[in-house]
């Protein structure tokens, strides 16, 4: 069985003797609603992500996934609990260590595609030519060389999201947080981006936490999948993806893969 309780999981990891890259401790979030009532969006979330792990988070719409990612990024203050990077609390403190790709389009309309991708680079001491090179590389990665000098308003929805992904990647965060980054992509681009992301991840030190509603994508990309339950959002279960680290696209047809997929879908339907 691949599904375990958090208790078990933690003990397994302790044996690994590795310190988590990102850990979330007793995190809760509630929003005030009309009257004096509160909407509990997240309740006592605990999770740990280890260096170089690729983790996916799945859960029904509106169960608090984006809220959780925003809190991890330090953009939304939690009602209680803490977010730690390398053991250091970064609760409510955003930084370049946690890069983020947002659910909506968040390109700067006054910058061209190339300038958008270079946005984060200006905060590092990086020469103009190094910036240009990096931007060129990532333009190539997302297949938008021809649109380097276009403004966002001239792009399609999917193209915008590709630029947003390139922008986050170019900034080399320690943890990459992604909120349904491929939601707006066509099947083909999506698969290419998935492959690219896997390749990038396997060659670099980046740790990834990604929200997706595509279970297949979650399994294909990650080592572990967290399933969030709804109202209030809690970590319902955790699935270990026991697949070889190096994966090809056709692994999606493998029986192990399908078995894990069935299991995740079952868990999601349980509640």
């Amino acid at each position, binding site marked *: 069985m691949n599904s375990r309780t958090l208790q078990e999981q933690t003990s397994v990891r302790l044996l690994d003797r590795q310190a988590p890259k990102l850990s979330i401790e007793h995190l809760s979030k509630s929003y005030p609603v009309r009257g004096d009532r509160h909407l509990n969006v997240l309740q006592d979330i605990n999770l740990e992500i280890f260096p170089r792990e690729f983790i996916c988070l799945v859960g029904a719409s509106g169960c608090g996934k984006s809220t959780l990612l925003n809190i991890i990024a330090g953009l939304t203050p939690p009602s209680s609990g803490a977010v730690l990077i390398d053991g250091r609390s970064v609760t*409510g403190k955003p*930084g370049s260590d946690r890069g983020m790709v947002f659910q909506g389009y968040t390109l700067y309309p006054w910058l061209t595609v190339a300038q958008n991708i270079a946005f984060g680079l200006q905060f590092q001491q990086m020469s103009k030519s190094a910036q240009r090179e990096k931007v060129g590389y990532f333009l190539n990665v997302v297949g938008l060389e021809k649109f380097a000098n276009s403004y966002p308003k001239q792009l399609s929805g999917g193209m915008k999201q590709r630029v947003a992904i390139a922008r986050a990647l170019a900034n080399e*965060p320690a943890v990459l947080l992604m909120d349904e980054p491929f939601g707006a992509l066509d099947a083909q681009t999506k698969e290419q981006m998935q492959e*690219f992301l896997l390749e990038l991840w396997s060659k670099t*030190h980046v740790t990834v936490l990604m929200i997706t509603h595509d279970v297949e994508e979650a399994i294909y990309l990650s080592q572990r999948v967290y399933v969030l339950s709804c109202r209030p959002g809690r970590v319902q279960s955790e699935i270990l993806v026991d697949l070889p680290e190096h994966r090809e696209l056709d692994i999606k047809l493998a029986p192990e893969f399908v078995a894990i997929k069935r299991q995740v879908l079952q868990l999601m339907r349980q509640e």
Partner: protein
Amino acid sequence: MLESISVPSPKPPTRQHRYLSPSIFWSIRQGFPQRLSWLLVALSLALPLTLWTIVSSLQLVPPTFLPTPLAVLSAGLTMFAENSLGEDVLASCGRVLAGFVLAAIIGVPVGLAIGTFYSMDSLFSPIVGTVRYMPITGFVPLIIIWVGLGEPSKILIITLGVVLYNIIMVADAVKFIPNEMINVAYTMGANRWDVLWKVIVPATFPSVLDTLRVNISGAWNFVVIAELLAAQNGLGFKIIQAQRFLQTDKVLFCIVLIGTIGLTIDYGLKWVSRRLTPWADQIRH
């Protein structure tokens, strides 16, 4: 479709990360302690008052030009007690209200029309753009001839002074409505009239409230010009009258009184705006 992808060699793990250091005072759109806010508000009002007190007490400026706050206050109390300043306040408030309501009733629809229809833009913009620059004082003789010397002429001056700003600012606000919001309505069978009423009007509503808040101070500026016209009372009237006899204390009291009324209107309108648009992003607190 995508180019073949090759991944760069692993980066050196030396990448320096930058964090946003927490700050209460310089926070942007994050919570701000209500107490600190009140403190700063108090400071902001106390500082100029203190400065005034010092400059006037040390007589760095002759008292004829800058009396002490105390002198101003006592002049004000005398005016209330003996010169029925209360009536002046009411009279000016009435004129400002009437002139401003008229400027809103005319300015908001015309502004919406200009912002919405390119034809109305072509038709009205040149004249609005031209007249806006013309000093209102130049029209006073024509106003006297056509409207006379009663209340209507005073109200008209205030309206004329403000209405063009209302128009141009409301028209600008319409530009910020995303095309999709209008398109969705079309695909549900809305005609242009529906779009105007069901999309453009509600979408610009917060901006219209903002515009009115900005421009009501203009109405108060024009009340002084309006009350040059055969007025028997009003705060503007009192200011000009006191200026004539070098009663700087009275002038300053009336000015401060107008400022206080303004501050009340400002905070009142901000509150109303928050109340009327619960759906808008509440950026603060």
